[in-house]
């Protein structure tokens, strides 16, 4: 199937102007570059939740697990347990990963599993036609909250730093080059890579004017320091109209959970024997 190129024959059904196109584009180029640098595309698996973002699974001629809403991350973890060498990338939504399945996200960070999580953070439920998500601003009027929400957003960058992710970044769909670069770095990083991508939703929530005005790439930021990363993270609370730093906030090194399964090989032929010995001991 991949002979046909990286983009599959599936019909694209995102709205015109949707920020998902930008992520798709950056992702495609990142993969192509990694491919030309020697990465075997056979070993890439794209895992998604359910939502507009998740159509990524259909659109690429790559191994994919088009999972269920909120549960991409544990499915990805299972793949890594099976084969620690796989390059597993989760494309998840903000409703998906910050609401329905938040726990899994934090546990992937805690375990520092060697995979990449890209959150298509349009700050709205796109596919279910526009309800607030955990990163929608306070007072957001969505279809489930027509008079405005009564809860301020999470700061996922801070949460993931706290939970132990070893690569934490924020992207913006209208900063294509940086996004591509970040996705590449994330995939190559050994450990849990997390990118919160500010994505515009053309139909239900499009703050691109604010983003265009507010995003900036901090200079002289020490990426190896959790403290500086935390400080950077707290510059924007996903709510107020303040400056929004984008880029790689933190990159560190620590043991990877699935390494304990590296080299584990089930010795099937000798199993009958071992079972026999076990039972013998129980006589």
């Amino acid at each position: 199937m991949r002979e046909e190129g990286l983009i599959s024959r599936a019909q694209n059904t995102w709205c015109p102007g949707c920020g998902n196109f930008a992520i798709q584009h950056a992702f495609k180029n990142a993969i192509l570059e990694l491919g030309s640098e020697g990465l075997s595309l056979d070993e890439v698996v794209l895992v998604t939740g359910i939502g507009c973002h998740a159509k990524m699974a259909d659109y690429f001629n790559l191994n994919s697990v088009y999972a269920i809403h909120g549960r991409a991350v544990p499915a990805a973890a299972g793949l890594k347990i099976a084969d620690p060498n796989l390059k597993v990338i989760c494309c998840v939504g903000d409703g998906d990963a910050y609401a329905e399945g938040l726990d899994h996200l934090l546990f992937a960070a805690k375990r520092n599993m060697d995979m990449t999580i890209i959150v298509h953070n349009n700050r709205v439920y796109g596919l279910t036609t526009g309800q607030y998500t955990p990163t929608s601003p306070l007072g957001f009027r969505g279809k489930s909250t027509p008079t405005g929400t009564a809860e301020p957003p999470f700061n996922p960058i801070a949460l993931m730093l706290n939970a132990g992710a070893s690569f934490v970044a924020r992207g913006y769909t209208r900063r294509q080059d940086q996004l591509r670069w970040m996705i590449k770095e994330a995939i190559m990083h050994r450990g849990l890579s997390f990118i919160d991508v500010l994505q515009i939703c053309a139909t239900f929530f499009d703050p691109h004017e604010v983003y265009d005005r507010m995003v900036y790439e901090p200079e002289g930021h020490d990426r190896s320091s959790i403290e500086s990363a935390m400080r950077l993270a707290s510059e924007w609370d996903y709510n107020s109209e303040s400056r929004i730093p984008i880029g790689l906030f933190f990159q560190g090194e620590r043991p990877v959970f699935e390494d304990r399964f590296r080299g584990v090989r089930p010795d099937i032929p000798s199993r009958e024997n071992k079972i026999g010995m076990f039972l013998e001991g129980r006589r």
Partner: protein
Amino acid sequence: MEDFSVLIGGRAGEGLNRAGQIIARLLNAHGYHIYMYYDYPSLIRGGHNFSIIRAATHSIGAHRTHVDVLLALNRETLILHSGRLREGGAIIYDSDAAKADGIGIPLSKILKEEGAPPITRNSGLIGAFARAAGIQWEVLERIIKKEFPKGTEINLKVARRGFDASEQKLRIDRPSMKGLPLVSGNEAIGLGLLRGGLTSYIAYPMTPTSSLLHFLAEVEGDFGLKVVHPENEIAVMLMAIGAACGGEKVAVGTSGGGFCLMTEGLGFAGMAECPVVIVLGQRTGPSTGLPTYTSQGDLLFARHASQGEFSRLVTAPADASEAFFWSSESLRLAWRFQIPAIILSDKTLSEGYYSLMVHSREQSSVEESGPGNEDRPYRRYRFTDSGVSPMAKMPTRGAVVKVNSYYHDEDGITTEDAAMTASMQEKLLRKGEALSKELGKYETVWTHGRGEDLALVCWGSNGPVCQETADILGARVVRPIVLHPFPEEAFGRALGSPAATVVVEQNATAQLSSILKGFGHRVDATVLKYDGRPFSVEELATRVQEVHA
């Protein structure tokens, strides 16, 4: 003695389960068939625990109401269980804790004199029991040495004191010889899964399958197994699916509450055709219910869990031997047909101890169906006659493997097309027909006895107690082992046309009975029990006689 029972009781935290196992070993060492039931409330220390160890010269898997020897670590045990003692039976008790008409062993005194820790008290009682049963000290010594690699000396000392303070009451007239292997139901399931090719086990602890997790974690290294305990059961199920995509042969274990959380993933596995084995250990529900007691309340839930319709395998083994066999086969069949397979256990089976008989029945061969060369380009969901498509793992060189929870085409790409939807739905169900056909090669319905008057129909861990009851009443037992797809033909053949059919279940709404009625079988009466405690032989015999005079 051909058939006798020992009850040992005390408080939680005093090692009653362990003590029961040692007694079981002792009797096993004389070549008896063993069954042990362990009864405990959901707490860690205190409360009343007891084990009933039964030994017989024939195969057994149920306890009896009456016991021959009562071993009491405390007064409560005497109060609660003296009524069970058959005439002429022996009581052995801690004379520092209670008074009774029997062999008193001053355990506190002994422990004090030996400087032994409290946990060794039951060794004293075991020693006393061995002497009372006419078991030679050497046999006991050997077993204690094996069972207590740590603290051997002190346990031996205390046991010897008990032994010496006791007197012979019974006669074990069998030679000291190796018995069958003694395993818990969960161990049998674990070993069966391993035999079937298990490479990963993923679970979140929940009684009564926690000990399966513990067992497999313990042997992880020996078998090159990957054992993972994640954040919750949703993660368990999804990790299992991911692992299956990555080429693992994977099982998960849980009980009802955890299974609820797995149901969404179960449907995903069904739709995406990711094989997975689910060990569902039933306990008394609804909800948290009685966490450490038994039930057969989840049969219909297991058959119908998750939205929509897809093929699955549901089996309910009756004892350790069947659990061993069917766990292995469930795994093979799950992978062969790329479906979820549920092994319905319960507290009785999972935490009971049994003498294991390894059936010599032929195992199904796993037809590994990786994509051949003719399968280029690879299509994960290629239509075939059987509904089963070649399954390539990720990564497979040159293959793009697309797994999908939406309706999808043969490539695994999402579709909303009406015709493709109908075809995929049919594919999912066609696998069930192929599975049914394959199951035709198995003994899917177990029968016992010849009586044409009365057929006792039951399922799961009620098998052995029904068998003994049938023998007493001159009845037959018909027991489906596979519960989905229901082996209607085999069942009909096995049932024949008895004068009366009584269905025995450990639930309150007669779930198997409702399945049978759906297939047009007459059910004359049901015998139901839903207090968390398994039937004893005597109890079931009485209950059946009440409905079938």
